[in-house]
Each structure stands twice: as structure tokens, then as C-alpha cells.
């Protein structure tokens, strides 16, 4: 019984991944076709940015503070507290900033897109658009996916700055590190090969958030239950895919820019 339901769940997961792949293919077939919905993309970018700004701001500061406070006793133990700014900066730029911002973004945005498109599906708004000779896929899906793909790297840059700022704040409180010393170490340690892969992978994460939320919302079952399901499964699937792709992209990054 249990193995049956587990098997069924695994089968369902791969069914969804297969359908999501076809949906992604449809996105790429449509993304370059005119007319370009620039106004709609800009509107979504603005809305998504505003929606997630407060929560990623808090996250950014907390990442820096917590990382510093957690690492400090260990660094002191090894007599390496002077290297704290290096460690915090590299951890934030290479991994924590992009991944945590993407996960927060997935929780906030993917569920929102899933619920919004799911509700449009259930209330026949998507059908109404189609009957009016307007391609709902281009108008609703393509614009949202472009917006999430473009806005997440910008948010990540912002979070990285805040996290480094948070790291400095915690370092100043606990060790009295001066701003000049902290920042000189930050500037010294950050290389091109750290920034580009970190920000680059958020393009992929942003795309995952947009396409997953859109896919589950656009194909929501009828009824309010379908909307709720689209919203929650959007978060689960996009978070899972972000972590899987992070694992792959870390390998690619290390291959392209070996760690110094």
C-alpha cells in the first residue's frame, strides 16, 4: 500500500516534470515572437520587486549577522578571526545570497503567480482571453517569466550588499572591526569569478520560479481547491528545482572558475 502510493507519487512527480519541460519549450517558442509586451514585463517587474523588497531586505541583513556570529567562535578558536570578512563575503556572494534570495523569492512570488493564474483559470478569465483572440500564454506566462528572470539577479545584488553590511555590523559589535578595515578586506577578496557565477545562477533561479508558478497556475484544476494546490505546489516544486539546479550550477561554476 505504502510502496504503491510512494510509487504513485514518484510517477506523479516525473509526470509534472515532463509537462513542465513541454511548457518550458512552449515558452522558448514564444519568447522571441513579436509583439513584445515590454509594458507588461515592466509592470510585473515593478510589482514583484515591490512585493519582495521588504522580506529580502530583512533576509539580507540577517544572513550577514548570523553568518558572522556563528562563525566567529570557530574562527577565534583557530586564530583566524582576521579572515572573517573574507569568509562572510565569499559565502554570501557565491552561495548564500543567491540561494536564500531565490528561496525567499520562490516562497513569495511563485505561490503568488500560481494562485493568480490558477484563479484566472478557474474563473474562465484565461478562456475569455483566448476567445477574444488574445494569446493568454504570451500575455500572462511569457511576461511573468521574463520579469522573474530579470528581477531576481537585481534583488540578489541588493541582498548581497545588505548581507555584507550585516556582517560588518555584527563584526563591529563583537570585535570592534572598523568600516575601512572590513571593506578593504571585502574589496580585496571579491573576484570576477565570484560575482558572475553567483549572480548568473540567479537568472536560472528566477526563470525556475516564474515558469514553475506559471505552469502550475495555468494548468490548475477547476475549483478553489485547484487554486490552493497550484499555489502551494508552486513553492514546493520551485524550491526543489532551485536546489537541484544549484547543485548542478556549482559544479559548472567550479569547472569554469576554479576556486582560488
Amino acid at each position, binding site marked *: 500500500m505504502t510502496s504503491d502510493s510512494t510509487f504513485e507519487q514518484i510517477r506523479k512527480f516525473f509526470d509534472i516534470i515532463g509537462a513542465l519541460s513541454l511548457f518550458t519549450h512552449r515558452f522558448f517558442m514564444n519568447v522571441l515572437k513579436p509583439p513584445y509586451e515590454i509594458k507588461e514585463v515592466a509592470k510585473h517587474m515593478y510589482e514583484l520587486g515591490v512585493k519582495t523588497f521588504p522580506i529580502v531586505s530583512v533576509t539580507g541583513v540577517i544572513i550577514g549577522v548570523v553568518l558572522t556570529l556563528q562563525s566567529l567562535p570557530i574562527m577565534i578558536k583557530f586564530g583566524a578571526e582576521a579572515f572573517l570578512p573574507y569568509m562572510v563575503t565569499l559565502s554570501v556572494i557565491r552561495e548564500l545570497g543567491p540561494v536564500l534570495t531565490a528561496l525567499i523569492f520562490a516562497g513569495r512570488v511563485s505561490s503568488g503567480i500560481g494562485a493568480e493564474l490558477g484563479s484566472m483559470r478557474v474563473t474562465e478569465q484565461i*478562456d475569455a482571453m483566448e476567445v477574444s483572440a488574445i494569446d493568454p500564454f504570451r500575455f500572462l506566462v511569457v511576461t511573468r517569466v521574463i520579469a522573474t528572470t530579470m528581477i531576481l539577479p537585481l534583488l540578489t545584488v541588493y541582498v548581497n550588499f545588505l548581507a555584507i553590511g550585516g556582517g560588518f555590523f555584527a563584526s563591529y559589535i563583537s570585535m570592534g572591526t572598523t568600516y575601512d578595515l572590513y571593506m578593504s578586506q571585502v574589496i580585496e577578496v571579491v573576484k570576477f569569478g565570484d560575482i558572475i557565477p553567483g549572480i548568473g545562477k540567479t537568472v536560472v533561479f528566477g526563470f525556475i520560479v516564474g515558469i514553475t508558478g506559471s505552469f502550475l497556475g495555468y494548468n490548475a484544476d477547476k475549483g478553489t481547491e485547484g487554486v490552493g494546490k497550484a499555489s502551494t505546489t508552486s513553492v514546493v516544486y520551485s524550491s526543489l528545482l532551485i536546489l537541484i539546479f544549484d547543485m548542478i550550477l556549482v559544479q559548472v561554476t567550479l569547472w569554469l572558475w576554479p576556486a582560488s
Partner: protein
Amino acid sequence: MARKLVEVKDVYKSFGDQPVLSGVSLDVTETQNLVIFGKSGTGKSVLLKCMVGLLTPDKGTIFINGIDVLNIPLKEMNELRKNIGFLFQGAALYDSMSVRENLAFPLIRNFNFTPKEVTQKVERALDMVSLSHAIDKMPSELSGGMRKRVGLARSIITEPMLMLYDEPTTGLDPITTKEISKLIRDLQQELKMTSIAVTHDLICAQIIADRVIVLNDGIILFEGDLDTLTSLDDPFLKNFFSPEYLEDNYG
């Protein structure tokens, strides 16, 4: 003799192993108002959705204005859709847009009207449904009857040759039902449109129907005018006009 605008021939549609339409055939001539009457869940809405390409029948043919809608590319289907209005059961207004934007949306996307022309058309359409005062409201601020009127205004704003109504009066009280039905009839007369309305609402059918079809379990049980239908002796058809049915539906 009037030209046939809609020709449906032997259409079958199933969902899984559940047959919904089992060989439906019907014709609608220009400027005629056909009402497809039947209980909930008998395939009425499915038939309408097949006509506009939202669903694909398993078998059969559908011609609208001489065009085989089941065998044309999407581009041509969209050209045809510009001449078809569709009023959904829940009006399907776009939640994120105001009434003005809802009405302007198909005009801006599909036609080359100037902003002034768009505004004029929006105002005229709202005037026709007596909702000029609601132009800047959001759909969430409208009552059920108002939403139907705005949906109706959005459907007729492009002055389509064919209007399809999916349960236009469901969920409305008898007075609003009468108002919406009269509005539908008046607009059809004014704009000289052909229409197909699916409903289980007797009041609505009485007001707008030139001809009636009764659909049950995916097949056509009756075709003719409403007076003939109400005078028939068939137990199933009579059931529609029984005091119990009328009590359940109209109080």
C-alpha cells in the same frame, strides 16, 4: 431564405470514458436567436466551447460563417474569434483591470483604433448596458448582475456577428434575470447579431428565444419553438415546466 451562420454536424465529445455530446447536430441562421435548453451537466457549455475552439470534439464538424473551425490554423481561428462574442457564466472579467480596461482590452489588442475611438466605444458599450457610472470601478466592486452587464458590454464592444451566451442568468434573482434577458434581446435587435444561448432558465429562454433546442445526456430531444415545447406531452420535457421545477429554480 436566410443564410446558415452556424452548422454543427454530428459532434461527439467525451471526457475520459464519460460521454458528454453524443452526435449533436444543429443549424443557426443569420440573426436568429437559438436557445439550448437543458439540465445542468448535459453538455450545453461543452458544445459552445467546441464552437470557439476552447475544446476539440472527438468527432464531427463545426462550420461558422462557412469556415470549418476544427480544421483551421490558430491564426485564422483568431481572425474568426474577433467576430464572435462570448459571455461566460461568471462573466470572466479580468480581476486586475478596471471596467474601462476590461472593455478596452480586446479593442487595443486586436484592432487599430485611436485612443479616442477606444474611449468612445467603451463609453457607448457601457451606456448600452446602463453602467456608465461604473466605468472606473474594479470587478470586485460590482454585484453579480453588474458583472454580467459588464461582461455583456465587453462581448459586444467589437460588434460581433455571432454572440454565444453560457448560462447568462445563472445565479441571478428573477428580477435581474428578466433585466439581463431583456437587455440581451434588445442588444441583439439593435446590433442585428445571431446568438446561441445555453441556459436552464425558463424566463431567459422565453424572452430571447426564436428557436429552442433541448439537450439531454448529449443528444437533442427537441427542436422547435418554445410554445410547442411547453405544450408537449413528453414526461421528461414536461418536467421542465412542472411546478416543482419552477419552484426550485424561481422560488
